[in-house]
């Protein structure tokens, strides 16, 4: 929209240079250079305790492809995919309800969905820990119900119940996926809402008038038309889930490590930086591949 009013940089080279210099320098020095160095390290190996020699080896990538790490890569993708599907299934009806709510209630519903997203990720994860742990609210509540049940059965001389064994809700794969859904859900609802809000409602009314039921209208009219929103919702849920560190770190058990946790360990405790560098670039390639795929599908949709 503003494109036609843009000046060539030659028109005021002084201003151009002064605006360009600081941000570009900063980008090069503190973003591109660090990433490039990690990329370089991914082709190197440790020498002695602290030195890293970059010799163009692919050994780190080969190491990342051994079954242990391959299974962690696969598991990270699986967790992210399951999280995305759950978020889509939970978020779609919510977005639908918001879209067709009365104009006066709409902003409040949006605020309701967005508010938890403003609180710190760490705190949201901690709140889930408090709910799920052995002495947490769910187990506390179930224990209370159990003891009431036991007491009434006892009083009625029906039988005795064994002591309540708390459910293992924390430190497993279930907790990680629940945590990811909890954190990512608002990200899914917003793009779905903004895509559905732009729909031509007369199409929906036409479908209903012609005798299609609500479910059929939603599946065959709303969902295809909201596809760009669904695609971007899937992206903004999938990508952060794929690289999630905090959620599996705090809610996961021994076998629910995701790729980010392995990367962290290589840099902080295992001290194998070249291998960690290779893993973090594999994660980055997976992310870029997802973005490229979305762009490709998006352009195909517009074309056809």
């Amino acid at each position: 929209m503003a494109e036609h009013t843009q000046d060539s940089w030659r028109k005021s080279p002084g201003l151009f240079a002064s605006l360009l210099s600081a941000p570009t320098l900063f980008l090069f020095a503190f973003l591109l250079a660090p990433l490039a160095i990690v990329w370089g390290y991914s082709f190197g190996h440790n020498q002695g305790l602290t030195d890293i020699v970059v010799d163009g080896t692919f050994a780190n990538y080969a190491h990342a492809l051994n079954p242990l790490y391959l299974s962690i890569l696969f598991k990270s993708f699986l967790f992210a995919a399951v999280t995305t599907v759950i978020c889509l299934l939970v978020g779609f009806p919510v977005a639908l309800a918001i879209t067709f709510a009365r104009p006066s209630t709409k902003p409040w519903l949006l605020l309701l969905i967005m508010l938890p997203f403003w609180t710190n990720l760490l705190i949201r994860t901690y709140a889930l820990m408090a709910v799920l742990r052995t002495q947490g609210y769910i187990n506390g509540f179930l224990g209370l119900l159990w003891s009431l049940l036991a007491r009434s059965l006892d009083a009625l001389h029906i039988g005795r119940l064994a002591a309540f064994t708390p459910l293992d809700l924390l430190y497993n794969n279930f907790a990680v996926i629940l945590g990811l859904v909890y954190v990512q859900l608002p990200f899914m609802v917003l793009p779905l809402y903004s895509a559905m809000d732009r729909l031509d409602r007369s199409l929906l009314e036409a479908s209903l008038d012609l005798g299609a039921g609500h479910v059929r209208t939603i599946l065959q009219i709303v969902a295809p038309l909201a596809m760009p929103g669904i695609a971007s919702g899937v992206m903004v849920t999938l990508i952060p889930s794929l690289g999630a560190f905090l959620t599996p770190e705090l809610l996961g058990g021994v076998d629910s490590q995701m790729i980010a946790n392995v990367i962290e360990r290589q840099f902080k405790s295992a001290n194998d930086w070249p291998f960690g560098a290779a893993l973090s670039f594999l994660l980055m390639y997976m992310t870029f591949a997802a973005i490229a795929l979305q762009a490709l599908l998006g352009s195909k949709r517009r074309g056809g």
Partner: protein
Amino acid sequence: MTTLRETRPKPGPLDYLSRWPLRLWVGATTLFLYAPLLTLIVFSFNQSKRNIVWRGFTLDYYAMVLQDTSLLTAFANSLVIAAVSTALSLCLGAATALLLWRFRFPFKPALEGALSLPIVVPEICMGVALLVFFTKVVPWPTYFPWPLNLGAIIIAHVSFSFSFVASVVRARLASFNREEEEAARDLGASEWRTIMDVIVPHMRPALFAGGLLAFTLSLDDFVITFFTSGPDTITFPVKVFSMIRFSVTPEVNAASTLLIVITVALTAIGLRLQGADAGRDGHTG
């Protein structure tokens, strides 16, 4: 079109929110999103240490938080980092926005691509890249007096937040009428004067909104800070992380509640500013 209506207005066929299954669904989702946070806040006022049963109201844990020097130091670190990185992000972000809005130049798509990196690169990759950079390439001196020892974290925060500021400011600039700028130039203002007196005032709401965004991003960041902080440069989220890793205590609930209140308040102010801004502009944006 209004057709024949019964006396009692019936909800339209598309008014999905008035149908009970969807109401139940939205209600359950809201409960899922809020119940953990609300219990966290409520139980920060609970007298019981065991944290499940309500034993009466107390502010003891808030007193504990306010006496915990390591937590307070971490909080002061977080505030200083957020303030300085916001100021730097604003300068860099505004310059970038102005540059991209005003000029056509070679390699512009490359610059735009580089700017989108902090948004698309996974946080953990940014974190390890900055860890490597600040230990191997430019080791940040840890003996620097406070707050200079926070420099590495400040730079790390600027590197991810300034492109967010740039995109907020650039969106705002799209509604600027360049005739105002030409008028200023015709009246004899220099290029620099025009920017400071005409363009920057137009940017101001976006600068506030972008600044608050940068401040909240910095205050909230855990992963990138986790990799760039040392033993003497712990921020609030990093401190809370080390506290909650193995236990749930009412003291952490109290500290978390304080942080929730601060971030929600900041974001609400930011949204208000942006909302007021959007209201004034009508459809020009």
